């Protein structure tokens, strides 16, 4: 039996930030992740937007958290050494109905105190974003909106939690939870963990995790969403995040110039689907939105399409719940069920929320040794040439480019593996290999060889992402 003060279930964005924040207190922390790597569930695919907070009802937890989180996001990313682009956003409309929606959001944002909000005419919007379509009737400009790579952020938080002493258990799927005199006993893959507090961050499975011991008041209805990624060379490229509010009140659309330089388009939305499978209709929907708002986009520059899954919380009456669902069914037991947009924005806030409440329940002291700083993997692509040359002199592997599209070197790939990547996609999530225009067709061989060598496994057992995803059938060594 392994003994902890608090156990975090689920190594997605929320779990990683919960573990990080729990270590701000003198608590012995474990994070249990069912899969072989962290940030491989819901966190692996989303719109990558850090929202400014004008969308939520003033006074609600979501509204307060989003506003606070946005204000502190640059500082958070500096601590965790993750790229954050505060590029601002323009939400655009093409008619009176949507103008009204924007007006309401603007007024709501003013009440909330969202900094810098401006309601622009179509012409004013095109002056600051010339690639926008003609015929835009109004635009809501929010300078605080930004974009961050969700996996890189989650992985950074997890590394920081681990560096501060949280213990990370991978391949550890929780199967049972029971009450003990001290707190809880968690059964996971033949291991038992005892603890006084639990943070349930199990994403799509969070309702079922809670039901292992308590009734769940809400159920998760997964929704799938489709996205397109355009090459960074795609010609027309907005410099702001563009959001589209349709005149008919239907589902909007985003174009996000990502921190990596590509352009992310989406999402479409489909109900009750949880399998990360792309739908053709969804892709067409995204393309139509793109053509409407950014007519100069060259959709032939698409390099990837993918699907995301969101945990949509529904009450007993079956109705979708708009707010964050945070349950506290027993002492020391906190459940995050159905944390969707703006979950990425609020990950640190939600983690701190759980940590503060658990610390109070367990009467924990502050941890004076907590170090919020996490050094990232050096990214040569962003370095001025002399600094890059200095790195190569220090370590020749920084001179060897593995991923040509994204300019990622052997040293970066090896460091990703040393920090926990066990698969080709695990390397991708840490250093961005294979995210560019050739989609890994030119670097997968080298990455397979590096994974095989570093992990000391045959190349044929190296996986794309998780069990059963071996890239090769065999190898004649």
């Amino acid at each position, binding site marked *: 039996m392994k003994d902890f003060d608090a156990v975090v279930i689920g190594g997605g964005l929320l779990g990683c930030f919960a573990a990080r924040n729990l270590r701000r207190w003198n608590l012995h922390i474990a994070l249990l992740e069912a899969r072989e790597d962290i940030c491989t569930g819901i966190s692996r695919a989303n719109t990558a937007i850090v929202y400014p907070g004008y969308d939520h009802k003033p006074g609600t937890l979501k509204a307060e958290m989003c506003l606070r989180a946005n204000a502190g996001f640059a500082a958070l990313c500096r601590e965790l050494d993750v790229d954050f682009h505060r590029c601002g956003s323009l939400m655009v409309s093409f008619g009176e109905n949507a103008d009204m929606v924007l007006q309401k959001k603007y007024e709501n944002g003013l009440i909330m105190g969202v900094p810098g909000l401006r309601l622009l005419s179509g012409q004013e919007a095109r002056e600051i974003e010339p690639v926008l379509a003609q015929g835009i009737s109004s635009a809501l400009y929010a300078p605080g909106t930004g974009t961050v790579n969700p996996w890189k952020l989650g992985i950074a938080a997890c590394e920081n939690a681990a560096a501060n002493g949280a213990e990370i258990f991978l391949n550890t799927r929780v199967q049972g939870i029971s009450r003990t005199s001290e707190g809880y006993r968690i059964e996971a893959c033949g291991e038992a963990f005892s603890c006084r507090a639990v943070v349930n961050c199990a994403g799509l499975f969070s309702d079922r995790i809670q039901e292992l011991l308590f009734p769940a008041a809400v159920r998760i209805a997964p929704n799938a969403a489709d996205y397109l*990624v355009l090459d960074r*060379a795609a010609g027309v490229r907005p410099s702001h995040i563009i959001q589209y509010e349709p005149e008919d009140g239907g589902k909007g659309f985003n174009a996000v110039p990502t921190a990596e330089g590509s352009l992310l388009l989406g999402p479409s939305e489909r109900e009750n689907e949880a*399998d*990360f*499978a*792309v*739908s*053709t209709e969804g*892709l*067409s929907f995204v393309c139509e939105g793109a053509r409407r708002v950014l007519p100069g986009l060259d959709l*032939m520059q*698409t*390099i*990837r*399409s*993918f*699907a995301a899954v969101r945990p949509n919380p529904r009450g007993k009456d079956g109705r979708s719940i708009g707010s964050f669902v945070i349950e506290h069914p027993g002492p020391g037991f906190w459940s995050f069920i159905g944390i969707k947009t703006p979950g990425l924005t609020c990950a640190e806030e939600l983690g701190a929320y759980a940590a503060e409440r658990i610390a109070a329940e367990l009467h924990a002291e502050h941890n004076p040794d907590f170090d919020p700083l996490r050094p990232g993997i050096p990214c040569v692509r962003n370095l001025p*040439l002399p600094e*890059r*040359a200095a790195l*190569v*002199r220090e370590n*020749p*592997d920084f*001179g*060897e*480019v593995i991923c*040509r599209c994204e*300019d990622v*070197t052997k040293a970066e790939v090896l460091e990703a593996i040393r920090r926990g990547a066990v698969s080709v996609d695990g390397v991708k999530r840490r250093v961005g290999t294979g995210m560019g*225009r*050739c*989609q890994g*067709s*030119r670097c*997968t*061989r080298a990455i397979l060889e590096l994974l095989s060598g570093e992990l000391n496994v045959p*190349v*044929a057992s190296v*996986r*794309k*992402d*998780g*069990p*059963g*995803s*071996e*890239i*090769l*059938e*065999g*190898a*004649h*060594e």
Partner: protein
Amino acid sequence: MNKTDLLIIGAGAAGISAACAAWDAGCRSIVLTDRLDSPGGILRQCVHEGFGLAEFGAELTGPAYADRLSERLSCTGVLFLPGREVLALTKEKTAVLSGSGGIEQVGFKRLILASGCREKTIGSLPVAGPRPAGIFTAGQAQEMINLCHWDLGSNIVILGSGDLGMILARRFTLEGKRVVSLVEQNKRYGGMARNYRRCIEAYQIPIRYRRTIRELHGMPRLTGVTVENLESGEREKLPCDTLVTAIGLIPERELIRGLEKEEWLSLAGNCKKVHDLADSAAAEGAALGRQIGEQLAKGNTA
């Protein structure tokens, strides 16, 4: 900073031929650079025959053809810098090279870009379904099979029937794998008749014409693809564990973005236009190398 009269980026058929021709034309300051450790480029993974007919009067394999070209290169005074990735080119006529030996800058008077091409991937197509393991581009498959001796899978569907797709179909068959079908959007195969005869007809490999792939199946590994008949709209599921895409080549010109109009810049081989034969890429490189070599040689004596 190192300086050279002529810098050639890419030591494939076009780049080597350009370097040799420029040398023969009298240019005595030539640097040829490549990301790989030895010259030959993609030829090294093309173990099939059909190279060098125009130039050497024999049907050579890719590696044998590369060896012949390399021998010719070693008889010149061209400085070959292997194992270097070109990070950037500047308007000031310098190239920034990165290798395990360090970051170097090479100044030049003229530049020949011979960087070949890259492949279109499945990501560029509106294909539904999950994104499982078991999907490769044709060039990637060729590299893994021929250079690494890796097994990719047992039941293979190939999207596209260009030369690369047909040659790979034969290669898989020779490896004892089953090529379930080639899938071709046009009414006729895409590559040369010679490859159709030798690779497809000779091994009786099925091709489905006027069809494309609409959906992938299987997770975490591919278990099949849905193929749509572009005329009737009829759909058919083909079970397979591996999909190879041979859907087109894109000239690799990212390095010269914004520099296209510089008069010191010339392109040769597949980065200029995709050639059917390596021999014609080589011929194009040689012609360009000769012309630029002569100009540079004259300029230096004048």
